[in-house]
């Protein structure tokens, strides 16, 4: 990483600055490349004509009305639902991996290590009958970690990251509140150091005060670990808080995309205008 001062001005600030986090070659190269993806269950049911590029460290929000195809698109992007046509490519180091042309094994390995998926309902993303610690350790064990002490240490560290009392490490998520379960699911996903995380309404089923805590947590984790995220939400306040840019979906198509605050404050498409104006304030 090369060292340089951001502020080339005579003021006091410039001497104090240390180099910004690597905005080097790695960040300038796309992480995910989506070309004309289509998956339809019926006319305008599902997703179609979707193309975009995601860069490392970017948080992309997917918003739109119920049934517009957000979850379908997310499943297609994340390797869970093959598209009728189109291509999803992921850059793994120097290699481009064509998600659905690659073998099942490679795709699964990717999902377990470099990718994460946070489900709306934590029951779908957790193993409810094993301890919190084992939930967190699972991905590491799948990657070959066997040392009990180290796995436990790691689980403790991640419980701390997601603000769950270390004393709960041997309890099962069955005994956790909804908010705690969601935080545990986040820890379980992030422990393997993924580069790309998919989230489908991560705060959907939670009440407002619990939501705020999870959003704050996600916001910090995204920064700290420089995650790329594709986030489905119907809550524009959540989108405003977390997403760098938005894609607005309607009846299976992307009708508008751009910088998050621009889409919310100066929406161009009539549907986006309706979406934004139908809520009080975001």
């Amino acid at each position, binding site marked *: 990483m090369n060292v340089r001062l951001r502020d080339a001005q005579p003021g006091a600030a410039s001497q104090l600055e240390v180099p910004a986090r690597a905005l080097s070659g790695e960040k300038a190269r796309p992480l995910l490349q989506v070309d004309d993806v289509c998956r339809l269950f019926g006319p305008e049911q599902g997703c179609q004509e979707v193309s975009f590029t995601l860069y490392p460290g970017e948080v992309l929000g997917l918003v739109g009305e119920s049934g517009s195809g957000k979850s379908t698109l997310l499943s297609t992007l994340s390797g869970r639902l093959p598209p009728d046509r189109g291509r999803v490519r992921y850059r793994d180091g120097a290699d481009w991996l064509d998600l659905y042309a690659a073998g099942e094994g490679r795709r699964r390995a990717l999902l377990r290590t470099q990718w994460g998926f946070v489900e709306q309902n934590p029951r779908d993303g957790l193993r409810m009958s094993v301890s919190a610690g084992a939930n967190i350790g699972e991905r590491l064990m799948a990657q070959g970690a066997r040392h009990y002490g180290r796995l436990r240490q790691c689980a403790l560290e991640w419980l701390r990251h997601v603000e769950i009392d270390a004393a709960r490490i041997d309890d099962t998520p069955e005994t956790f509140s909804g908010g705690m379960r969601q935080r545990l699911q986040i820890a379980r996903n992030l422990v393997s150091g993924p580069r790309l995380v998919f989230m489908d309404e991560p705060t959907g089923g939670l009440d407002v005060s619990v939501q705020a*805590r999870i959003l704050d947590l996600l916001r910090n984790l995204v920064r700290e670990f420089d995650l790329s995220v594709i986030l489905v939400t119907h809550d524009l306040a959540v989108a405003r808080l977390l997403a760098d840019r938005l894609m607005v979906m309607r009846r299976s198509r992307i009708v508008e995309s751009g910088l998050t605050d*621009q889409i919310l404050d100066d929406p161009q498409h009539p549907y986006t205008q309706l979406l934004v104006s139908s809520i009080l304030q975001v």
Partner: protein
Amino acid sequence: MDAILKVSGLAKTFVLRQPRDTVIEVLRDISFAVFPGECLVLSGPSGTGKSTLLRILYGNYLASGGSIRLRQETGWIELAGADPRCVLAARRHTLGYVSQFLRVIPRVTALDVIMEPALLRGYAKEVAQAKAEALLVRLDIPEKLWSLAPGTFSGGEQQRINIARSFMVFWPVLLLDEPTASLDGKNRQIVLELIEEAKAAGSAIVGIFHDAHARDAVASRLLYMKDEKERAHVT
């Protein structure tokens, strides 16, 4: 010295489909340049598009036409029609913006809100914190508020948090939308001093000030924006 921001032929028309079709032509053929170390003040009656212009410069609103060229360390870029990554990069390094109201984020403390721009630029945490605390003291925010989320603060306190945040780092271009609006005389004076210091350090400032005293104190030039679609002109 060379300009840092060059705006030419800028236009903005809002086309609203909700609740009924409405076309609002707000800006037409606006051109001006801003140089480091000066403060260009946008003035004119309410509704003439001063805030709209500032928001377009920040990439918050889309331009309907024209060009906005910004000089960065790496060269000139075109902001009108730029892709989100390019706008975000400009916001991180070049474009600062102070809105009239603080957008409060739940659970994030005043100190963290203020430190954020510095941390994003890679300041060491201790350095950022020392600087944030100095600004909080200068802007007369009681120490017991520093570690609280500003959601419950008064309007004037929130505005001062907003200002402290914006003066944490050097901005080559700083956009100010009525930064002194909800402040008392003493605090207004402090903000005017901060603006003067930023100018002296080489910031190019574009600002809106309803208060004539504040305007006269900081303006290098005025861009007068007339009503009834008459063209704006620089004096």
